[in-house]
C-alpha cells in the first residue's frame, strides 16, 4: 500500500465519521429537539433523514404518539359519603417538546406530574358529586321505569310480571359519568399545559366499593332480593286466591242460573198441567171427585191393609138387609 492511498483512506474515514455525527433520523413516531450545548435551538417534527452540526448539537428524541397513564386506584369518599375505589386512566401526548424538555425533561418526570394533577383533580371531582353520578351516564333507567309503570297502569303487563320493577328509589342524575370525565379532563388540561403535555382523554376505568363497604352492599343486595322474592311469592299466592275466588263465583253463578232455569221450566209445566186438569175436570167436578177418589183408593190402599167394615157401608147394604 502506498502512502497516498493511506492518506486517502484516512480522509475517507474522517468524512464518514463527520457524516455519521451530523446525520440523524427521526421516526414517524418521534419528535426531536436539537440542543446546542444544552440550549434548545430547533424542533424537528418531520420524520426522515436530517442533519445537524456535528459534536456541538445533540438530538433529544421524544415520543410523538399518544401515551398512557395509569393511576393507582384511589379511595375517595363521594359527596353522599360512600367510600369507593376509583381507578382512572388517561391518554396524553407531548404537545410542546421544548416546554416538555425544559419543565419535566423525561417521560418519568411527566408521569410524576400527571400523578399529582390527575389524582387530585379526580379526587376533587368525585368527592364533589354523589356516587350515582360516577356510575350512571344518563337517566335512561328512570325513563324506562316510567314507561313500564305506565304500561302496568294500562294493564299491558301480564299479571304477576311486574314484580322485579322498582327496586329501591333511583335518584336522578344531573352530571353523569362522561360529563365527570369531561370535568376532570378540563381541569387537568389547564394544569398540564405548562408542562407541554396535552391530555387527550381521561377514563374512569373502574369504580368499586371499598372492601369494608362491600359487605354491607352485599347485605343490602341480599335483603333486596329477599324482598323481591317475597313479593313474587305473594303475588303468586294472590293470583292463586284470585283464581280460587273466580272458581267459587263462577260455580255459584252456574249453579244458581241452572236452578233458576230448572224452577222456571218446572213451574211453567206444572202450571200448564194444572190448567189442563182444571179445564177438563171443570166439566163435571162431582164426577171427577168420585172417579178420582176411587182411583186414589186403588192406589193408596195396599195388600197389607186391615180394614174394619161396618155393615152400614154401602157395599154391604145387601148383606145387612138379609
Amino acid at each position: 500500500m502506498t502512502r497516498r492511498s493511506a492518506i486517502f483512506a484516512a480522509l475517507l474515514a474522517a468524512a464518514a465519521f463527520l457524516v455519521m455525527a451530523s446525520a440523524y433520523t427521526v421516526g414517524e413516531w418521534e419528535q426531536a429537539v436539537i440542543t446546542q450545548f444544552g440550549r434548545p435551538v430547533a424542533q424537528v417534527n418531520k420524520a426522515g433523514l436530517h442533519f445537524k452540526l456535528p459534536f456541538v448539537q445533540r438530538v433529544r428524541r421524544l415520543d410523538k404518539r399518544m401515551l398512557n397513564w395509569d393511576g393507582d386506584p384511589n379511595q375517595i369518599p363521594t359527596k353522599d359519603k360512600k367510600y369507593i375505589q376509583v381507578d382512572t386512566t388517561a391518554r396524553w401526548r407531548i404537545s410542546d417538546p421544548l416546554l416538555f424538555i425544559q419543565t419535566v425533561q423525561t417521560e418519568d418526570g411527566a408521569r410524576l406530574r400527571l400523578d399529582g394533577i390527575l389524582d387530585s383533580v379526580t379526587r376533587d371531582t368525585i368527592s364533589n358529586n354523589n356516587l350515582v353520578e360516577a356510575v350512571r351516564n344518563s337517566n335512561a333507567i328512570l325513563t324506562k321505569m316510567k314507561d313500564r309503570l305506565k304500561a302496568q297502569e294500562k294493564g299491558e303487563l301480564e299479571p304477576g310480571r311486574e314484580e322485579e320493577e322498582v327496586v329501591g328509589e333511583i335518584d336522578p342524575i344531573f352530571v353523569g359519568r362522561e360529563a365527570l370525565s369531561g370535568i376532570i379532563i378540563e381541569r387537568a388540561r389547564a394544569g398540564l399545559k405548562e408542562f407541554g403535555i396535552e391530555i387527550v382523554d381521561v377514563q374512569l376505568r373502574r369504580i368499586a366499593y371499598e372492601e369494608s363497604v362491600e359487605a354491607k352492599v352485599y347485605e343490602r343486595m341480599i335483603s333486596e332480593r329477599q324482598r323481591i322474592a317475597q313479593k313474587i311469592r305473594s303475588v303468586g299466592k294472590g293470583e292463586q286466591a284470585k283464581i280460587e275466588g273466580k272458581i267459587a263465583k263462577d260455580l255459584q253463578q252456574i249453579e244458581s242460573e241452572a236452578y233458576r232455569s230448572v224452577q222456571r221450566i218446572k213451574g211453567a209445566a206444572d202450571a200448564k198441567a194444572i190448567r189442563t186438569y182444571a179445564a177438563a175436570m171443570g166439566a163435571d167436578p162431582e164426577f171427577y171427585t168420585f172417579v178420582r177418589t176411587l182411583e186414589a183408593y186403588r192406589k193408596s190402599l195396599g195388600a197389607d191393609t186391615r180394614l174394619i167394615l161396618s155393615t152400614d157401608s154401602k157395599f154391604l147394604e145387601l148383606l145387612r138387609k138379609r
Partner: protein
Amino acid sequence: MEQWGDQPKDDIRELLNVLSRKLGAGDGARFIPAIAGVVLLVFTLFSSIYTVEPSEEAVILRFGKFVGTQPPGLHFKLPFGVDRAVKVKTKVILQQEFGFRTQGRATGGRSDYTTQGLTAESLTLTGDLNVANVEWIVQYQIADAKKYLFNTREVTTNLRDISQSVLRRVVGDRVVTDVLTVGRAEIAEEAHRLTQEVLDRYDIGIRIVTVKLQDVNPPEKVRPAFNDVNAAKQEQEQAINHAEREYNRVIPEARGKAEKSISDAQGYATAVVNRSEGDASAFRAVLEAYRISPSVTRTRLYLETMEELYGRFKELTIVDTGVKGLLPIFQNPSQPAAPAAPEAAR
C-alpha cells in the same frame, strides 16, 4: 501442547492451497477481494429482500419516514437499514379477555379458564348501585397499520382501558336484573358501538369486530339470594298453574251438571204436561160415556173398585152395627181374629 497447536495450522494452510488450486489462481492476494465482494453481494441481497406473510401487511420506513405499505408476497427495499419493513398482522382477529383468562387448551380441545384474582376486573356497579360480575371479550383487528404503529404506543393497554370504561358506563345505565337477564345482547351491542366511537376519536387504526358478554353473574356472596328470586318465580308460576288447573277441573264439570239439570227439568216439564193432557183427555172420554147413564155407571165403578180393593186386603173385618164390646179383638193384632169374617166377606 505444541503438538496440539501445530496440527490445525497445517490443516488450514492445506485447505487454502487446495482452494487456490481449484480456483486456478496462483496467489491468495487477488482472491481475498473476490470473497469480500461475494459476501457484500449476499448481504445486500438479504437486507433488501423481504417477504410478507398472507396475514400481514408491511409498513415501509425510509430513515424512519413512512413511505408506503406492501401487501403479502416477495418485495425489495433499499438495503443497509435505509429502508425498514415493519410487518403488522392486519388480517388476524385478535382477542382481549376481561374478568377471565384462557389458560391454554386441554387435550380434549376444551379451553381452561381462570378467573383467579380477576374479580376486580369483572365486578361492575349497576345503575341501581348493585354489583354484578361481568366477564366479556373483545375481538378486534388492525384496520390501519400506519395508524396502529404511529398514533399510539400502547395499543392493547388503550383498548383494555377503554373497553372497561365503556362497559362500565353501559352497565351503569341499567338495573341489575336487566344486566343479568334480558339486557345482555343490548349491552354487548352498545359497548361495541361506544368502544369503536372512542377508538375512532383516538384514531389508532383499530376496528372492533365484536364485543361479547360471557358469564354475567351476581357476586358469589349474593348468588343464593338471586337464585331464591328465580325459585320464587317458579313457585309463583306453579301456584298460578295449580289454581288454573283447579278452575279447569271444577268449572266445566259444573257447567255440564247445570246443563244436565236443565235438561232434566225440561224432561219433567214435558212429562207433566203430557200426562196432564193425557189424563184430561181420558177424563173427558170417560165423562162422555158416563153421561149416557150416570147412575148405573157410578154404581158399577164403585162396586168394581171395592171388589178389587177388598179382594186384595190381607184382613177384612166386618162389624155389625148391633154388636157391642168388640175391642178385645184388636188388642193383639197378630192373633187371627174372627176367622169367620173373611168367609163372610166372600
